[in-house]
């Protein structure tokens, strides 16, 4: 999957589980500060991403995923 595809899938997940408008999602956005995804919603996003991309995102890794780009990088590497 390309980075663009991952971004678009992530935007869909963020919309479904955290109510973030898909059009607001871009790689440079921070989950917490820009998209207002709180810590528990972040867990839901991570779980949905694991299902969608077939990767495992360990608990200790979640706090390192500050921006959407961080998540994309992690998923690209893990795939």
């Amino acid at each position: 999957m390309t980075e663009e595809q991952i971004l678009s899938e992530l935007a869909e997940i963020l919309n479904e589980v955290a109510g973030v408008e898909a059009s607001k999602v871009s790689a440079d956005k921070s989950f917490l500060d820009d998209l207002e995804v709180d810590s528990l919603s972040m867990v839901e996003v991570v779980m949905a991403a694991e299902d969608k991309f077939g990767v495992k995102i360990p608990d200790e890794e979640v706090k390192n995923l500050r921006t959407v780009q961080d998540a994309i990088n992690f998923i690209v590497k893990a795939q």
Partner: protein
Amino acid sequence: MTQIKAPFRPNGTKVAGVGGYRPKRVVTNDEVAPLIDSSDQWIRERSGIIHRRFAGPDETVAEMAKLATLKALEFANIEPEKVDLLILATATNPAQLPNLAMEVTHKIGATHAGAYDLGAACSGFSYGVAAASEAILAGDAEVAVIVGSERMSDFVSQYDRGTAFLFGDGAGAFVITRDEEFKIAPPVWGADGSMAEAICMTKSWTDFQAETASEFPSLKMEGQRVFRWAITEMVQVAHAALAKAGIQVTDLGAFVPHQANQRITDHIAKSLNLPEHVAIAKDGIQMGNTTAATIPLALETLMENNEVKSGDLALIMGFGAGLSYSGQVIAIP
């Protein structure tokens, strides 16, 4: 050879009484928020909690347990001296010794009751329901009390952003007696020590003693890790507990999970596809997380609001530090 006489073993057990004690002082989010650079809205969105209660100096773990126990005994119409076993589930005894269950039996005048403390944090109440029920089934006791009582405010730092707003104080009790039928199903329980540090104290008492200028130990929690564990694992536990009771989710009248966080309750309830008619406990909104006391307090609220009726089946389920869990189906008295 002389045989040991077999005790009388009843066919089943039931919850005969429910009683709660809520400390007098109500603590609003506005009171908690400034110390953690937060706000009422922030707390509501993340936990559902509107307020919790903090115990005063006279509302000790044993005193609150006494008041909850007496209320549950009154409900069951049983005199305190008839109690032959009292189990106190608590994680907040401020002293290593003595345990506090015996102070409770002394206070209520249960003069011949056996008494012990049980420590399994937020799962403690459900473990205790099993222990009390099994003691009766084995013929060891006729009337048993399981009471959860907590002063979380003594062990949670009011400056810790991850936990300060979540916890509260309170106590709740079940009276358990013999019955012709099984009205308390066997528990599904478990524990995963590999996640012990997900909810723990900042240091042990011995480490604290070694560092004289040290900060008093308080509770700490990896909220995201615990949330994920709860919303995935507890769904399986709920299904297993229903299976042990031989019932379907549609047979339930109430779902009374540990009140850790409303978002956890909502998640599990959604995953279980609970039918419309199942009352879902939301007492944590007004009490916060009172650890071993949440389940009886939440059931008491559902009963007082007539959201459930006598004979309805309730799935009760505790989970937390350990990480540990225990849940079972009971018939509501």
